[in-house]
């Protein structure tokens, strides 16, 4: 028989690693203890983590028990993940620039310009809703052609694509 402190620690470690709610039954079977003891331990843990100085607590959902952060700290958690929301890698920016100016364009045409594979980046840009599939090109393999989205215009504060700084300007700057 395990000591109560140790049993409590085991229950806590299991709840800690699980992304899914764990039931009293599951926990008891894994640890091989009486469900009554498990029940008491889980209630102990619930009471403990309700305390103010804890950032997460143990909630009971339909299927069992799950550690989740307390809702009042959502803003901070959002801040933690936010950098991933907004930053675009330089490679992604390059790819986006090429698509913006050369659309409709296929993946292999982008690769020809950038000199590297762009599969992943194109997928990321689609996920971020900055570009979308416009259709397929006639010709061998009928490759997908990409273009920028409405969200792209919104994010860059453009009314339409004609508002992109023109390449003609670029030429004149050069001369």
């Amino acid at each position, binding site marked *: 028989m395990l000591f109560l402190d140790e049993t409590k620690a085991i229950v806590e470690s299991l709840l800690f*690693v699980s992304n899914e709610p764990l039931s009293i039954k599951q926990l008891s079977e894994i640890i091989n203890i009486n469900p009554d003891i498990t029940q008491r331990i889980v209630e102990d843990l619930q009471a403990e983590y309700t305390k103010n100085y804890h950032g997460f607590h143990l909630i009971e959902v339909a299927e069992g028990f799950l550690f989740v952060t307390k809702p009042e700290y959502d803003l901070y*958690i959002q801040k933690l993940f936010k950098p991933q929301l*907004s930053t675009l890698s330089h490679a992604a920016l390059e790819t986006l*620039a090429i698509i913006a100016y050369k659309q409709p364009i296929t993946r292999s045409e982008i690769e020809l*310009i950038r000199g590297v594979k762009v599969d992943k980046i194109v997928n990321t840009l689609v996920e*971020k*809703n900055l570009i979308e599939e416009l259709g397929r090109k006639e010709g061998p393999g009928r490759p997908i052609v990409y273009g920028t989205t409405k969200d792209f215009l919104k994010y860059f504060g453009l009314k339409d694509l004609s*508002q992109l700084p023109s390449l003609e300007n670029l030429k004149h700057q050069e001369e």
Partner: protein
Amino acid sequence: MRLENFEGPLDLLLHLIEKNEIDIYDIPIAKITDQYLTYINEAKFLDLDFASEFLVMAATLLAIKAKMLLPKPVKVIDEDEGEDPREELVIRLIEYKQYKEAASILRTREKEMTKVFTRNFDEAQIIKKFGPGNPVENLTVHDLFQTFKVILEKASEPEPIYEISREKISIRECMVNIMEALSVSKKGLVFTDLFPLGTSRLRIIVTFLALLELIKLNRIRFMQSGSFGRIVIFIRDDEE
């Protein structure tokens, strides 16, 4: 122990040194070379790349062995004395051994860490929960334009070309070289002198293939003064 159980020729050598309880600074090279060659002979090489690594080391060992057996020239210059042909190999073995130790320390740490679990949140899920947000928050249309401008400029530049030097040796060329050397020295050439320390792996292999080819063509012959004695190569006279 099979050859596949060793990480490479250095690993095999270290094993032999440990098994024989030998002082790494004073390797009985003849003994170790024999044992090393026994392993190689018994091995069935499936992976040619792997095999070539072991063969290169075999050649190195034979070269060291030959150098140590070579009688010291009479007119020996003092500075040359004390130079041990094993030195370079010993330095390599000691360095390799250090990293083997370091690897075993990493293994211990790895084992400890496999007992430890972190929470494994699906970050994509969390991000989704917070809504899409603006993925280009810190960028303006000017950044986009500048980026494209740089791409266009880069595209108009010629690709930089680097010259990569690589030794080019053909078997034919090597055969010619060996024959020329043989025609000059009537007393023949010591086999291991064809592979001085520091000879590139490619050259060792090509030289070896060239020798095999010359034997096949009956252009050269070998003489050895007893087993494990030095091997000397001679031109085969037409009359023979």
